[in-house]
């Protein structure tokens, strides 16, 4: 009972057909027509055999009718094929677009929570399952039912006594399918999981190829893979055993029907209560009848699988849109205020009641040990994530009231991890469409990229490989800086920018920024104290807590933790100054 409830309450896979009602009706219509004509063929054979030797026999009529029927079937089937491809591909394409539109409107947090690899499955495997459902399942379902009903009716009209005996096969075969598939379904699910596991191992081995080669850890990876692969084989064999049992049973039941036709039908022919032609027709209809019963069995499984996929897709498309709130279009001055901001990710508290104030045009450094919450703090500042409690505001306006698009044009963010797109260098820098050529050039100059770009034969039109694999770490960082600067931001957020850029370049770049983008408010997460000694404020973050803030001198006098960090870098400071 419970099971029934869950089935009815969850979205039915047939809903996916609703917008295509007309197309589907045409498709089903074509399929039914070709099947209807198909049912006529045994009739033609039967009457031809009965007519042999009588006066009403005409070879021309037989050939003409038969050929005509075949041609009609051919045309209908061809149209049906085109139609089903068209409809199913259209459904797949639109589903993908819908999914993607939905994903593209979501917030960053949604993607992280939903897991990108699961979304990838939604957009590929799940959509493919629905595509096959529409292409094959729908037509097979309707035409099978139609053929079974049609052939049954015809059999009953020819000879109801014999027909009743033959039609017993329908419930028997249906029952066999029902029993076997109910056992198979959990196996199919397990099988899917094993395949996912196999794919996961493959993915990790592709993405971690460098490490695996450095460690030469191919053998343990292979062992991991073989275990999963063996499990896949074992499950495959289990599934196979069910099919190996089911199919001969179905064939046997069908054969018993033909035996019934011979023994009982033979009796009727001998008794003169049935014609020989009808006897032949019975045999023909039996073979027409058996096939759709089996098809129906397979289709039921098909529909079950498509339903699972559809449910998963609906989870994404039905997820409430998280539109970015806020309507106030601000001209940012650079005044930032954190008021008791806390952030938790899962069970982990990343930031604990952090408060500070940043004035327009100032330079602020955020330092602190690994996993202090520095990066998450920057994410909060771009609105990628929202605080769990507390409030952050720009120019006195709370974040959630600010119009996000206009806001983001004014905030440049250089991420810590290199994220570049597989498009040209120019398009990577001018990633935002509002950026014009002059802005690009200025950003390139500021990021000290001009020499590098000039050394490239294709200059700005050079294509960047996926994940920027044709660039060095520092080049990637500078490219990302140029991308952020090209926006002409009012606020620039640097996440450990200096980690991969050498000291000389770093100094030049920071000077360039001061000169080319005067009045910019700079927030820089960094490990090195030396370059930020002159900054207006230094925030010291540790384990999500703001331990101290103030100028370098102030911190040296008041914060032992700061002094510890500073001492750890002293020898370098001496060298560099």
């Amino acid at each position, binding site marked *: 009972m419970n099971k029934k409830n869950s089935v009815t309450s969850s979205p039915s896979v047939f809903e996916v057909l609703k917008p295509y009602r007309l197309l589907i009706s045409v498709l089903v219509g074509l399929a039914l027509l070709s099947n209807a004509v198909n049912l006529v063929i045994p009739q033609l054979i039967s009457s031809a055999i009965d007519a042999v030797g009588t006066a009403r026999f005409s070879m021309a009529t*037989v050939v003409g009718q038969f050929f005509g029927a075949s041609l009609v*079937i*051919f045309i209908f089937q061809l149209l049906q094929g085109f139609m089903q491809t068209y409809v199913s591909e259209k459904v797949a394409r639109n589903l993908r677009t819908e999914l993607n539109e939905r994903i593209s409107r979501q917030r960053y947090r949604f993607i992280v929570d939903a897991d990108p690899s699961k979304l990838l499955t939604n957009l590929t495997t799940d959509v493919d399952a629905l595509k096959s459902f529409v292409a094959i399942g729908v037509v097979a379902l309707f035409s099978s039912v139609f053929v079974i009903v049609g052939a049954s009716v015809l059999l009953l009209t020819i000879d109801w006594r014999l027909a009743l005996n033959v039609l017993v096969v329908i419930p028997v075969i249906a029952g066999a399918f029902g029993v076997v598939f109910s056992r198979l379904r959990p196996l199919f699910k397990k099988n899917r999981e094993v395949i996912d596991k196999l794919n996961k191992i493959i993915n990790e*081995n592709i*993405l971690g190829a460098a490490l695996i080669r*450095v460690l030469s850890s191919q053998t343990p990876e292979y062992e991991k893979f073989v275990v999963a692969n063996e499990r896949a084989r074992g499950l495959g064999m289990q599934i196979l055993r069910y099919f190996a049992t089911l199919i001969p049973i179905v064939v046997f039941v069908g054969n018993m029907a033909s035996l019934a036709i011979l023994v009982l039908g033979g009796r009727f022919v001998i008794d003169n209560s049935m014609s020989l032609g009808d006897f032949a027709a019975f045999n023909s209809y039996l073979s027409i009848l058996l096939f759709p019963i089996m098809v129906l069995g397979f289709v039921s499984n098909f529909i079950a699988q498509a339903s699972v996929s559809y449910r998963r897709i609906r989870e994404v498309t039905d997820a409430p849109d998280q539109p970015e709130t806020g309507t106030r279009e601000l001209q940012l001055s650079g005044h930032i205020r954190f008021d008791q901001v806390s952030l938790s990710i899962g069970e982990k508290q990343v930031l604990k009641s952090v408060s500070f104030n940043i004035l327009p045009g100032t330079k602020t450094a955020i330092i602190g*040990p690994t996993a202090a919450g520095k990066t998450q703090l920057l994410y909060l500042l771009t609105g990628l994530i929202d605080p769990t409690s507390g409030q952050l505001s720009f120019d006195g306006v709370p974040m959630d009231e600010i119009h996000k698009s206009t806001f983001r044009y004014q905030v440049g963010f250089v991420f810590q991890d290199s994220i570049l797109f597989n498009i040209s260098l120019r398009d990577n820098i001018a990633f935002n469409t509002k950026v014009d050529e002059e802005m690009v050039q200025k950003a390139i100059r500021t990021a000290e990229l001009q020499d590098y770009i000039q050394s490239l034969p294709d200059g700005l039109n050079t294509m960047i490989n996926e994940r920027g694999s044709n660039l060095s*770490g520092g*080049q990637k960082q500078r490219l990302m800086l140029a991308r952020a600067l090209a926006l002409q931001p009012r606020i620039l957020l640097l996440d450990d920018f200096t980690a991969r850029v050498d000291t000389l370049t770093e100094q030049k770049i920071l000077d360039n920024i001061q000169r080319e983008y005067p009045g910019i408010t700079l927030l820089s997460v960094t490990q090195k104290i030396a370059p930020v000694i002159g900054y207006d404020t230094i925030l010291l973050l540790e384990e999500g807590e703001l331990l101290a803030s103030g100028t370098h001198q102030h911190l040296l006098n008041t914060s032992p933790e700061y002094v510890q960090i500073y001492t750890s870098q002293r020898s370098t400071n001496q060298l560099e100054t």
Partner: protein
Amino acid sequence: MNYNLNFDSSGDRPMSTPEMFRKIWQLVGNEKSSLIIALVVIIVNSLLNLIAPFLIGDAVDKFVQTREYPGVIRYGIILLVIFILVVVSGYFQTQLMGQVGQRMLFNLRNALFTKLQELPFSFFNQNKSGDLISRINSDTEKINQFFSHSLIQFAGSMVSMVGAAAFLLSINFTLGVAALVPGIVLWLFTRWVSPFVKKQNAVSLKSGGQLSAEIQESLSNFKIIVAFNRRDYFRQKFEEANVDNYRKSLKAGFINTSLAPVYGLLANIGQLIVLAFGIYLILNGLFTVGLLISFLSYIVLFYNPLRQIASLWSSFQVALASWDRISMILVLKNDLEIIEDQTVEKLVQQQNATVTEFSKSTISGMNDKLTANDRASIERPVLVFEEVSFAYTPGKNILTRINFELLQGKTYAFVGPTGGGKTTTASLISRLFDPVNGRILLHGKDLRSYSHEERAQRIGFILQEPVLFTGTLRENIVYGNPELQLLSNDSLLELLHNEGLGGLMNRFNNDLEMEINASGDGVSLGQRQLIAFIRAVLRRPDVLILDEATANIDTVTEQLLGEVLAKLPTTTTRIVIAHRLNTIENADEIFFVNSGKVTRAGSMQQAVELLLHGQRVS
């Protein structure tokens, strides 16, 4: 070697039938004997299936028409026995054939994975990971579909088709030939269109691969998409790939679905020929009604499997196209072969040379600091670069004729501007790539002559971008270190503390079971680098390379790392790649890497000079 899979054009070439069968045979591998047994059972099953209609026709002729009911009953009993035998043979047919398919699939997956492991890093560097993933996941899935669903039907259909044809010809040869003519037309037709069908399917598969590569890229870069207000870019790029995939799938789908109606038409024409020609023969007294009924059954038994094959044909073609795409990977060879070491005979001579050269340049400076142990190690430089040049793309040298040597137990720093070739040098040492010219000697032997296991054991490389696997912290730490995998959590922690890694483990609250997600943001970049560091140190390599490996770690933790490094065995040679000076101030020697050259910077001061004022080309 070119590893770019999308570079290949062999997909355009039509495949001949023998070539196709050779390919299938290749796939069969060592399953040949099982396959033959399975085929025998399939033949038995099909024969039994074929006898039934014949007996029915015979019964009609002999007993129904002559109204002898006991004969009908007798035939009925014979049929019942045959039908029971069909159940048995049917069971074994599916079992045996299916098992062959499952094992073949198992072997194929293993072969593919082994190949992935065997191929060098260049392969992954030259291909989009999204495309690779799609190629492997979805193409094996398509072959899987074929093996687990279609293969049995395919084989069964083939056999019953041949059997039915034989029966047709033996009942009445002329009628049989006439009935089979449309079948021959079909065969020619199939041969003619197959290459085209396969090509269209390959095009559509390829576009599917691009689509999933696109999705992969967009999803993993979602941060940027949001931060730069480019949700439109996300949508637009996806839509382009989506529409392209739609068009190509549509074309392939149209072609695939138009095959079945053609088969149906010709099957009906076959029936028509039998009917018309059979009636003609009956009228002339050359044939019986009973035989005509049997004949019509056989025609169905011939053309139905043919239609099934037709419907399977496209999935067969898809499987072949997938097989092609996978074979493209399987035929690739690792160009990082293990070679015979050719340095032995020259070794003595060489060592003499290096030692003298060495004494001139370096020893003089620090002679007084040397202990006996150091002197011993000087006899054998751990690592030597001899005239090494390297280019990712021919003609564009990243490194040009590099020479240097590193001694046991020393710490070396490689500094220089970004893009100067530091990471490339490190990649060559850990043999992610081989030099285009020149060679690298490890303990006096050509690096290329070491087995991959030994080389990996001797050379530790902490990558710039740390790689973590989804799993626990423990799994990530002991990764690639089989001995440690046997330890309990407590003894592992103890070991970590003994190795001086305790301070670092405190950063994770000593929680070895902490869950780590390879892609998620749960672990910060600094923490990732810490894990990679612990992992590498635990392996106790001869040479440990840190490629900006502490760049995102705060300086206090970095001091801890420094202490760990200092506690490493005195035989360990450390190579530190950095531009942050504090990380290199303990170096015994500093190399300056820039514009394809590696030059020795005599002192820290000189290195600073070079860094600050040196001419940089990047």
